[in-house]
């Protein structure tokens, strides 16, 4: 097995008492002494600091970078104003999802943030493009500061952070260090992702941790936060066999890129993806709440009735939602199920009732 990579914050994690685990080829903190539940609740109440340096940061340069990237990503990137960021998908030739990503227009270049588990794939995928240069960013860490007090805290160090709204992207100076800020995240909370030079990352993290509102938060709580916010995770809720419509991500593909739109198609899998968006998917990412207290986790089979029959789907992400106060899950299930419908999960040989609910489980608090 290849050696696990370490982020610039590795020693800080150890000093903070983190439990480190392998994740997507990196040695990452899954939790700190506070514990997953308290870390989750801290983020919803105050501000949580996450090390997301394992994620891939990639710069795309070229006069037509936006148009070129649109040949891989069915989003409106040419219409993305400087200083703004947008969510998008790399699609595959069969209409599946190769990764999900953030795309920021930084004026003279695009900045992409991709999943750690897909960074190597995405870089190779981008290398096939003509007319752009691809620069993997290898000398910067990425921090996320998330929660209702994130904006107030960050503004103490970087005043202009307060003037950004949801999905703004801008550079800001902190003590002579240039930070690449976006007002975004993946927890359902207001907050920022902060790209900082690797050599300054610990100093910035310590400056943030000096405020009583801020605590380090591990990957365990990051997962329960994103699940409560109804945000899909690559590798769980979507993969190269899951189409955008099935994953509930059709919203990221504007009319402009759909059949009949001004820039329709022109990306991998466009025909299948466009047709499915028009007709509606047969199966959809669906929210579930078990009626009992037992969590239903990834892989648990779901049935229409309390005995017999074929499985109608499987849980793709599931666990306990600390802010919801009970178990929650997302599964791919046949279209036509409505909130309030009851289906059954088979857990340890028993069928347990599970209610279909609208996503998200926990309403996001973005600063729009």
């Amino acid at each position, binding site marked *: 097995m290849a050696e696990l990579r370490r982020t610039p914050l590795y020693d800080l994690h150890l000093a903070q008492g983190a439990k480190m685990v392998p994740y997507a080829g990196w040695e990452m903190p*899954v*939790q700190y002494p506070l*514990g*997953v*539940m*308290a870390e989750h609740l801290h983020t919803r109440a105050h501000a949580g600091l996450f090390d997301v340096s394992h994620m891939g940061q990639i710069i795309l340069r070229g006069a037509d970078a936006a148009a070129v990237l649109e040949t891989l990503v069915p989003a409106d990137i040419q219409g993305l104003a400087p200083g703004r960021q947008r969510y998008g998908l790399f699609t595959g030739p069969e209409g599946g999802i190769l990764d999900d990503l953030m795309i920021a227009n930084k004026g003279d270049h695009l900045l992409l943030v991709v999943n750690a588990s897909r960074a190597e794939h995405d870089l190779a995928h981008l290398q096939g493009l003509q007319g752009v240069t691809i620069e993997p960013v290898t000398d910067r860490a990425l921090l996320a500061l998330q929660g209702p007090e994130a904006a107030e805290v960050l503004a103490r160090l970087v005043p202009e952070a307060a003037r950004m709204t949801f999905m703004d992207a801008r550079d800001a100076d902190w003590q002579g260090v240039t930070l690449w800020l976006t007002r975004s995240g993946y927890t359902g909370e207001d907050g920022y992702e902060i790209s900082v030079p690797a050599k300054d990352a610990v100093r910035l993290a310590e400056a943030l941790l000096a405020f009583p509102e801020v605590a380090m938060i591990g990957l*365990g709580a990051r997962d*329960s936060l994103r699940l409560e916010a109804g945000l899909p995770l690559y590798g769980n809720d979507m993969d190269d066999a899951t189409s955008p419509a099935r994953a509930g991500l059709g919203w990221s593909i504007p009319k402009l890129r759909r059949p009949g739109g001004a820039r329709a198609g022109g990306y991998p899998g466009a025909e299948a993806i466009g047709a499915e968006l028009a007709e509606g998917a047969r199966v959809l990412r669906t929210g579930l709440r078990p009626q009992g*207290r*037992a*969590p239903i*986790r990834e892989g648990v089979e779901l049935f229409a009735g309390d005995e017999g029959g074929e499985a109608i789907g499987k849980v793709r992400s599931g*666990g*306990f939602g*600390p802010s919801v106060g009970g*178990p929650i899950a997302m599964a791919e299930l046949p279209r036509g199920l409505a909130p309030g419908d009851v289906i059954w999960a088979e857990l*340890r040989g028993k069928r347990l009732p599970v209610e279909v609910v609208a996503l998200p489980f926990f309403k996001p608090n973005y600063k729009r």
Partner: protein
Amino acid sequence: MLKYTEDHEWLKQDGEEIVVGITAHASEQLGDVVFIDLPEVGREVEAGEEIVVIESVKAASDISAPIAGVITAVNEALSDTPGQVNDDAMAAWFFRIKPAAGTDLSGFLDDAGYQALIG
């Protein structure tokens, strides 16, 4: 006197019955406990039989019956407030078991033995 299993259960003799829970070390390893599925009272169990499911925020784990016998009581309060296991593992008992004839607890770890196990 308390005894321990290598699976991080504690056993306490109380009259004819044995009270069983998990250790603080085990609860720390599990993380925040969010669900506990307890056996039915009156169930006859074999030693090593998996009779309790504990779900933490991280994963599901099984707890085995440390000895053969009959379940005489379960701690129903854990169903509603499973977090008691994290707050005070020694107080948060799981079940009471009436040992089968001939049960001998002398093979289990004593306190010093358990402390050595978890280092």
